[in-house]
Structure formats: structure tokens, C-alpha cells
């Protein structure tokens, strides 16, 4: 009986183990921090065009640890992230390899490529201010610095300042105002909060609609997402969209991007997929389906993006933002931002 048991167990184990085969010809393996809903259609388009199958696994945490422990046998070829932080973490951990930048010279602007080609931005997202149409006059608030103005006391909502999007914004404030200046700004913003930081970007807009607060900071494409959900349309319609700092340095941008792993077993296919995602077809999909800003110049925007018009982007190097992240998180602790 024991032997039978062992046999059964072994066969289960073998069956499970063989259920996955990585590294075959005609495949590319993807570790993704990016939710499958948007990226899957692009993978499907890629497979249709090239016959190369895309295997993906999505997680919000632990991809770096996974790559690291798997080492040279890791099946992963590409890593997708939705912010600069994780891209640069993976790069700094020595888990990436460089790709010839000249391949993307026509598609990706310089400040969205790592100087040695270790990561590439595919889309950009603007960190915008939204303000209640009813309760905030147009142009009453126009810069990130304004958010710390005491006149907005009790009227601002944000998500946790330790979320990667807020961390990147704070990191850019450190770059422009120094640590002390950024600290003053962050504690000013904290004092203006209407409630303890909570929820995601969408939840902040909802809070404005509800009258909990009047001003929030969000990523721009959430507006597009809300306009697609009947229940959330009224939330999105309750706010004006403000691209901050137009008279100065421009609006803070973050990138979603991709990196080729150091031990990519399907390197050629992986580079093909990268090229595909930087190409016109995919860049247009990013804009049309998710209202993200394509990195490639000259791509048609979605109607919503067109309605907002063009704006000045902060040209601060993504690498600088990445370097200031740890300091930004420490600032958040120091001013006890999330403690509310």
C-alpha cells in the first residue's frame, strides 16, 4: 500500500513537473508586473504575426527574487513593469542584459531608455491633478507645489505615498527641491489630507465625487478606465483634469517598460517581441485601449487624450527618479504621511 502510494505520488509529481516546458523553439517567456488584461491582446497580436508563443506569468511582488534565485536557469526572457522603480531594481540587481539601443532609435526617445540599453520605456503615464468641477475653480491649482499650500487644508486625497507612483513623484520633488524642500512639501501635503491615505487612484476620484475631498493626484489613464465602467462614469465626470507645472518643468511622467533578462533562453524571440511592442501597431494599441502615452513619436492618441491636448512633460531622467526612490520612502516614514 505504501509503495502504491509512493507510485501514485511520484506520477502526480512528474505529471505536474512536465506540465510546464520552458525554453522551446518558438516561445518567449514573460514575467510581468503588468496586469494581463491590457497586455494579453498585444501578445496575441504578436503570436499571430510571428507564430511565436508568449508564455506569461503575472505577479505584483517577488519577481525579482524569483529571477535572482532561478539564476542562469531562469526560463524568463523579458520582465514587464508598470513603473520605473521595478525596472531599475532589476537592472541594479544585475539581472538584465543590454540590447542595442540603435534598434529603437526611431521608436523610443533617449530619456526613456537606460543609457546602456538595459531597460526600455514603452509607454508613459502622466501624474495629473484632478479637482472637483463643482468646488474648485479652474486654474485654482496648477502645480504639484500647490498641493502643499495650507489653503487646501482638509481638501486633498491621495493613495498611500509608498505606492510606486507616489514614490516616483516624491523622488522627482527631491530632484528639484532637495531633500529638505521635498520634506517640507510632503509634510505640507500631509497636513492638507482630508483622510488617511487609502485605496487606489480610482478611489480618490470617487472620493471627490462623494464630497470627501476636492483635489487628488492620479495617473491620467484612470480617467479613461473609469469612463469605460458605467458605474464609474459619474466619478470621472465630476473632476477637471489638470496637467501640472505647465509653466515650469512640466508634468511628472513615469514609464511602463521592459527589460531583457541576463540569462534569457529565447533571446532572439524576446528582442522580436520588444521590437513589436515599440512598433506602430502596439504603440497605437497602448494609446487606444488604455489611453497611455506611446513613447514613439507620431502615434495617434485616443479621443480622450486628444481632448486634453498636448502638454509639457517633465524631462527629468528616469534614472534620477529611480535613484531617489529609497530617499522618498524614508521621507514618507519621517513625516508619517500614511499615519494620517
Amino acid at each position, binding site marked *: *500500500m*505504501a509503495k502504491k502510494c509512493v507510485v501514485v505520488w511520484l506520477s502526480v*509529481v512528474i505529471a*505536474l*513537473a512536465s*506540465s*510546464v516546458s*520552458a*525554453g522551446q523553439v518558438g516561445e518567449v*517567456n*514573460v514575467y510581468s508586473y503588468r*496586469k*494581463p*488584461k491590457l497586455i494579453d491582446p498585444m501578445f496575441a497580436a504578436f503570436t499571430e504575426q510571428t507564430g511565436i508563443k508568449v*508564455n*506569461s*506569468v503575472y*505577479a*505584483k*511582488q*517577488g*519577481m*525579482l*527574487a*524569483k529571477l535572482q*534565485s*532561478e539564476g*542562469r*536557469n*531562469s*526560463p524568463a526572457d523579458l520582465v514587464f513593469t508598470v513603473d520605473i*522603480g521595478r525596472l531599475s531594481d532589476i537592472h541594479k540587481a544585475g539581472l538584465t542584459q543590454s540590447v542595442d539601443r540603435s534598434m529603437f532609435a526611431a521608436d523610443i526617445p533617449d530619456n526613456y531608455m537606460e543609457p546602456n540599453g538595459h531597460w526600455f520605456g514603452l509607454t508613459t503615464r502622466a501624474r495629473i491633478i484632478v479637482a472637483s468641477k463643482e468646488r474648485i475653480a479652474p486654474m485654482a491649482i496648477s502645480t504639484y507645489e500647490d498641493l502643499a499650500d495650507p489653503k487646501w487644508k482638509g481638501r486633498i486625497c491621495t493613495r*498611500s505615498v*509608498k505606492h510606486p507612483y507616489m*514614490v516616483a513623484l516624491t523622488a522627482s520633488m527631491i530632484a528639484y527641491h532637495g531633500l529638505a524642500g521635498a520634506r517640507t512639501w510632503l509634510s505640507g501635503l500631509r497636513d492638507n489630507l482630508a*483622510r*488617511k*491615505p*487609502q*485605496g*487606489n487612484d*480610482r*478611489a480618490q476620484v*470617487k*472620493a471627490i*465625487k*462623494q*464630497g*470627501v475631498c476636492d483635489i487628488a493626484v492620479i495617473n491620467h489613464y484612470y480617467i479613461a478606465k473609469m469612463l469605460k*465602467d458605467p*458605474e464609474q462614469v459619474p466619478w470621472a465626470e465630476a473632476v477637471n483634469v489638470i496637467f501640472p507645472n505647465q509653466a515650469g518643468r512640466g508634468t511628472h511622467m513615469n514609464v511602463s517598460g521592459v527589460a531583457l533578462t541576463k540569462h534569457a533562453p529565447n533571446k532572439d524571440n524576446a528582442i522580436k517581441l520588444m521590437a513589436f511592442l515599440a512598433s506602430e501597431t502596439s504603440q497605437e494599441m497602448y494609446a487606444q485601449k488604455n489611453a497611455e502615452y506611446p513613447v514613439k513619436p507620431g502615434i495617434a492618441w485616443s479621443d480622450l487624450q486628444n481632448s486634453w491636448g498636448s502638454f509639457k512633460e517633465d524631462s527629468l531622467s528616469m534614472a534620477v527618479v529611480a535613484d531617489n*526612490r*529609497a530617499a522618498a*520612502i*524614508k521621507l514618507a*516614514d519621517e513625516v*508619517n504621511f*500614511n*499615519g*494620517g
Partner: protein
Amino acid sequence: MANASTLAGFKGFRFGFDLPQKSWTLASVFVAILVALPVAAVIWTALRPSGDIWSHLISTSLPGYVSTTLWLMLGVGTSVLLTGVTTAWLMTMCRFPGRRVFEWLLLLPLAFPAYVIAYAYTDLLEYSGAVQIFLRMAFDWQAPQDYWFPEIRSLGGAVTLMGVVLYPYVYLLARAAFLEQSVNVLEVTRVLGHGPWRTFFRVSLPAARPAIVIGVALALMETLNDFGTVDFFAVQTMTAALFDVWQGMGSLVGGAQIATAMLAFVVLLISVERFSRRQQKVYQNVSSRFRELPSYHLEGLPKLLAFMACLLPILIGFVIPLIVLIRLAVIYFDESWTVDFRTYVLNSLMLSAIAAAGALLVALLIAYGQRLRGGRVISFAARIASLGYAVPGAVLGVGVLIPFAYFDNSLDALMREMFGISTGLLLSGTLVAVVFAYVVRFLAVALGQVESSLAKVSPSLDMAARTLGYGAGETLLRYHMPLIRGGMLTAVMIVFVDCMKELPATLILRPFNFETLATHVYWFASDEMLGEAALGSLTIVLVGLIPVLFLSTMTARARSTRLSSGTVT
């Protein structure tokens, strides 16, 4: 084998199952060490230097994190203790209307993942939720400033909701313990003139204490490892700090150190409890299980109170969130019900079933190994392995990654060197890793059940069986397993339900193109798209219900009496 037959005198080998005692112990030690590996990997990671993270944390947010965590644990602990023990006692010893139905209804909240219930209640109780909208209409309030309403996204909210989904652990274990009470002892206390309250505090409660403590410990460990709920409610616990350090500051080492500190705290708690009852050992008189327990017939106010005490946790922990989910699932049904969705259901069922069986086997092996021959190594490894339950799932996921990848890469290097072939990653990135993670994560549940059941079997039974010539394995198979069948089933069922709900470790360890219900729900839920997540959440709950219902019939049958007669007033 030789050893066993000399011990027993003759005939060691029957069924081909009868390993000699020494091999049993060795196998137990080996398995215990194996399942202890992930936690050991976390602790090992924590040993590396992490720079100035601690001095930064201590001077800023750590004190707040620690006190919030302690309050959360105190709150949830008190809540599950009161709810679990009260309901278990009422079910076992009292008669009042609805008792039969409550008996299994009380288990239902177990099927709800805490994060799902958190989403559901936020949907209901936040400013734009149905409750506040109704209040505003009723009292003609206009803005949030016009009235006070408890904030659901708070420490209090987290305590309430976690308490209400976690009390079934205590209820289950306490009820099983109460059911196994010796009728003789209860009769003696009655003869001595003790009323129901004194009987409870002087006799039943002390006897059930080990089981209750295991229940509370499980609930508290689950509280500690939770990230979904506290993150959603913006409650700053140690787990939140862990993720700040790991994800935000990019320091896995720092995160592992926080995890290790939390583990040390759990170990301390458990040791204190064990130490405080080091002299107690309660063996059940086997025959008394088959006699009827006396019960108290409730009338008037006590009847009403008992009824309410059982109804309330069911309402809050099951009925209300279920209604919220059903409403959303209906609205978003077309977007949610896809071909893929059905695959996810099957994936979840398959993984959970395999992991539950695996956890039971490992628990039996370890518990019986301990019974056979104690030994420091095995009990230490068993303790370490049980700690997997107190580690946040994502951290445990990394803990599983490390030894698996180490094994795969070492084997690969060896094969390359000797035969020039690469075996690549054999186990990492496969479902084996996921199942293993589940077993490690939920071993505490299975082991707690099996250990406490086994502990009640008098050692004289072992001695008798061995004297009769049965070997260690056969004694387990023929005598212990039938006796502890109830406990084994409970273990399998709880682990199954827990696996259905498991999310963070699954996310990290699952293979390419593979989703479970929980990971599927997470795509939406993490984006606060509760509507799209509703059908998946509902399915997790409904599938989780099947074993819960099965479980309740088993617990009831465990005592083969009809409690309808033989009442005591």
C-alpha cells in the same frame, strides 16, 4: 524492520506498510526538515546585513507599526476567543431553537477570504455605500461633514472583519474538544452541585484549553500574515512595514528580518502558553464518547441571547457579504463567466485537493513520528515548519523559491559537469512548487488537528497494539487512524478551503499561463474592481462551502449520540 519485530516479539511486516520504528522516525525527521526549509530560508536571508533600514525604521514608523500590530492581534484574539468558545459551548451543551442549523451555519464564514469580505464591506459601508446613502436620505444629510459614521477602513474595521472570518477555527476545535468531554466527569461535577457556569469554567474549559489555544493561535497567525486586508484598510501593521521595506526600498533582506522578528514573537507567545500548561495532560476515556452528553435546556432570555450570539457572527461573517457579492456577480455576470473562468475553477480545485491530501500525510507522518519517539530534531523541525502559517504568503513564496532553485541549479550544475547536459529548472516554476508551498503554509492547521486528536488517544492503546505484535505503521493504520478520523477530516477540509483562498504565494510560484480562482479575482480586486471580481469571489466561497458542509456533518457524527434526549436543567 528487524528492530520492530524484536520490539514486538514477532511478525513485523504486514500490508507492506510496516516500516520499522527507526525508519518511521527517520522519515518523519526528513519530511519535517523538508517542510521547514522555506521558513529556514527566510530566516537565513534575514541573517545578511540590511544597511541602515532598522535605525531608520526605529526612529520613524516602527513604534507605530508595532503597536498597531499588537492592537490588531489583541482585538482579533479576543474576538475569536469569545465568539468561538461561546458558540461552541452553546452548540454542544445547550438546547435552543435553531441549534441544529446553527451548528453548520457557524462554519460558513470560514469560506470567505478576509480580503474579499473587506472589499464587500467597504462597498456596503463606505460613504457611497448603500448604508450611508440610506442614512443620508432618511436624515437629510448632505455632506460627510454633517454626521459621524464609523470608518470601515480602520483598525476597528480590520479587527471586526478578521474576527468574524477567523472565529470558525476556534469554534471547530473547541466544539470538537467539548464533544469529547467525559460524561462521567460532567456527572461528577453535577453531583457536587456545580451549576452550568462553574462546570464550564472549572471542568470543560480547562479540558478544552489545548484545542482552544490552537484555534486562537491559528487565527492570530493568519492575522499576522494578512496583507490584503490591512493594505486595503490602510492599517499600518508590521506586515505593511515588511512590504514597504521589501518592495519600496528593494531590500528583501530587510523584509526577511521583519518577518523573522514577527516569527520570534509568535514563538514567544506559543512557548508562554505551552509553558503555562506544562503539567497538564488530558486523555479521553474512549468509551465515554459514545454516551450522551447532558445538556441544558434554555428558556426565556438565555434562549434569546444564545440565539443572537449564534446569529450575529453568521450574519456579519457570511450572509451580508454574500448578498453584496451576489448582487455584484449578477450585474457583472457576462463579463465574468468565460471559458477561462471554468478552467480557473478546475485549477483551484485540483491544487487544493492535492495540497490538502499532502498536508494531511505530512502532518500524520510528523505527529506520529513525534509520538513514536519524540526527539528534539523532529519536534524542532515541526515547530519551524508550523511557523509557515505566520509568514506573509509572498515572503513564504520567496522562501519556497530559494531551496527549490538551489536544488534545481545544483542538480543542473552537477549534470552539466558530469554528463554535459543541462537539466534546467526541474521543480521551480512548476505546480510542484505551488503544492509544496501550500503544504508548508497550511501544515500548522493540519498538524494542530492531527496532533490534538492523536494526543487524546491513550498511549496504553499503542502499548496494547504493539504487545499484540503490530508494528508502528500498522498500529497507526489500524487503530489510530480510525480513532482520529474526525480530526483528520477536519484537517483536510480546512486546508482545502485555505488553499482555495491562498493568493500571494500562488502568484509568485505558479507556472506560466496558469491561473487559479484566487489569482484571477486578484487581477480585478487589486484594482478595486469589485464588480468584476465578484463572480470569482463568490465561486471561491461556494466551492469552499462544500467541504465546510461536509465537515459539519462529520463533527456531528463524531459523537454518535442524538442529543435530543437526556437533557439536564
